[in-house]
């Protein structure tokens, strides 16, 4: 008996009991729809977190100054000024586990262009900063090492600055003032949006670190002239982050002549670790949602088994007749298996449509981000077909092993 004929026989049998077939399918429809909608919601949340990780820059460590002491009083975090430009250079040059290290100094400054003004964070840094944060430009160029060396008055500005200061103007090539010092805009950063802590990352002006220190921020009298407020360190790869963290700590302790047992005068924070922990909890949430939804699919599968068992009992005489006229055991097995799989696969297809619709509804009504991956849809349909095979096998086997004489006599 060929596949097409078997399929036709199965469809006819399902059509004869249309209402029952539809109700049986409903179990699978609900199961598949639940799996797809839940996974879409989970994947959407996960996707948002991974976007945040990307906007921060992957594999990123930040080295801060520790709090300093004046007499017995401890000042706030970052108030120490032990990190220097040379520390940054050394980290990048001497450590295998570090790709780039970008020193930064920062402060809040008043910006003026034409008759508009804006207050924003200004960061002095080196070209490595753009590598460390994986931050590209939408226009213009970044400053060069040469411009850093000669304290050039050039600036790369974020989108928020453009929106607030350069209304209807192409900012590149324009001159604006930071703390009354004229700077030329040489580049505009890509938009990054909020970071995972809700800060606007685009509200920033980047200038060469040398210029920032001499022209803009000044340094307190007790600080060394080359001190920096933080160093951004990009690890060589994701799986070498803890190695990089140890290397950075060790090298800085050596450079700062900190003896064993003494406290560090700096702190290393692994930012991506924090965000990745959130991503992990999202992933677990997605798994949990999928697991709960899978139970619905399982119940649907049991519904199919139930109905197929009823169907085998009801059609015992038909099975006996088919055997009498020449159906082999495997023909009968196949016929009932195809019926079960047809039920579950059609249910799966309808479930996919319902699931996608449900996810869209959630996105619209609740405003949650949803992400529907095509592979998830294919997997859902294949999985529901597999449910049909799994739960259809026992009833089909029962049918195939009937004795034709008994089956023909069955009342």
């Amino acid at each position: 008996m060929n596949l097409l004929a078997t399929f036709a026989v199965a469809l006819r049998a399902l059509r004869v009991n249309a209402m029952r077939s539809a109700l049986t399918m409903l179990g699978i429809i609900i199961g598949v729809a639940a799996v797809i909608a839940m996974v879409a919601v989970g994947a959407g949340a996960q996707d948002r977190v991974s976007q945040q990780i990307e906007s921060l820059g992957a594999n990123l460590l930040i080295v801060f100054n520790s709090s300093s002491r004046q007499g017995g009083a401890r000042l706030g975090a970052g108030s120490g000024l032990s990190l220097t430009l040379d520390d940054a250079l050394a980290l990048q040059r001497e450590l295998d586990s570090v790709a780039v290290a970008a020193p930064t100094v920062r402060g809040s400054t008043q910006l003026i262009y034409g008759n508009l003004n804006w207050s924003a964070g200004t960061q002095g840094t080196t070209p490595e900063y753009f590598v460390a944060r994986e931050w590209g430009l939408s226009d213009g160029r970044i400053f060069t090492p040469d411009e850093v060396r000669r304290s050039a008055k050039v600036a790369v500005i974020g989108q928020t600055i453009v929106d607030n200061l350069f209304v209807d103007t192409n900012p590149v090539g324009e001159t604006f003032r930071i703390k009354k010092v004229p700077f030329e805009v040489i580049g505009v950063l890509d938009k990054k949006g909020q970071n995972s802590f809700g800060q606007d990352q685009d509200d920033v002006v980047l200038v060469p670190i040398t210029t920032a220190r001499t022209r803009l921020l000044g340094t307190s009298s007790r600080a060394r002239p080359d001190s920096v407020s933080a160093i951004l360190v990009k690890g060589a790869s994701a799986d070498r982050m803890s190695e990089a963290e140890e290397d950075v700590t060790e090298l800085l302790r050596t450079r700062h002549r900190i003896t064993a047992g003494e406290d560090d005068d700096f702190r290393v924070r692994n930012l991506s670790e924090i965000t990745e922990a959130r991503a992990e909890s999202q992933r677990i949430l997605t798994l949990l949602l999928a697991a709960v939804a899978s139970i619905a699919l399982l119940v649907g599968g049991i519904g199919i088994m139930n109905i197929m068992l009823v169907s085998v009992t009801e059609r015992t005489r038909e099975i006996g007749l088919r055997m009498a006229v020449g159906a082999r055991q495997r023909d009968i097995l196949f016929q009932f298996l195809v019926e079960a799989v047809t039920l579950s696969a059609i249910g799966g297809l309808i479930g996919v449509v319902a699931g996608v619709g449900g996810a869209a509804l959630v996105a619209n009504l609740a405003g949650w981000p949803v992400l529907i991956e095509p592979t998830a849809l294919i997997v859902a349909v294949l999985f529901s077909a597999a449910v049909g095979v799994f739960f259809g096998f026992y009833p089909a086997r029962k049918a195939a092993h009937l004795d034709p004489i008994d089956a023909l006599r069955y009342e």
Partner: protein
Amino acid sequence: MADLLISTRDLSRHYTLGDTVVPALRGVSVDIARGEFVAVMGPSGSGKSTFMNLIGCLDRPTDGDYQLAGENVAALDTDALAAIRNRRIGFVFQTFNLLARTTALQNVEMPLLYSGVAAAERRTRAAARLNDVGLADRMDHTPSQLSGGQQQRVAIARALVNDPLLVLADEPTGALDSRTGVEIMAIFQDLNAAGITIVIVTHEPDIARYAQRIITFRDGVVMQDEGVHNRTSARDILANWEKPAEAAQ
């Protein structure tokens, strides 16, 4: 012996019910030639059904030999038996056993599904057989739209669709009124005249007299095996059907 279609030697079949062994058939040796029309009779429990199941390849003997058209089928496995039932044997049942909500044509096509015949040829052959039994205009009717006699004719068309060597009929007139029963027997006699071997099980002596030979079973053995004198012709009875009715008045 070349013309023997069915040849059983010491055929026996025992059923095991718990600890007791029930011998349903105890050493039956029967030869049936090609082209014969045989009636099998006997009270219930005589072993006639067991005998029919065995020669119909629905069951395997506990002991003994069975040759169908020269082939020893006692030793075949279930798949091989299914193939033999499919190609060589046509079954007709007392209760017709048609698939409900399925057209006459599809019912007749069904055995061909298991012979791997292509869809177009299935239709042609099934339609031809339905035409043979006089149901050319009822092909798209489902069993519930057909009379009992028509349903049995569909079942006969189904039995014939694969050109079998042997047609086995189990009480084929048992569920029909007497006139319709005679019509069915007329079809069997016509088929037999065309060369098909027919074995029917019946407990009605009148029906048995349409056959050429009657084998009577009792207690699992053949009690009597004799030819029929003054064999009844179903066509003659149908031609004179009104007369006995008038005579009765």
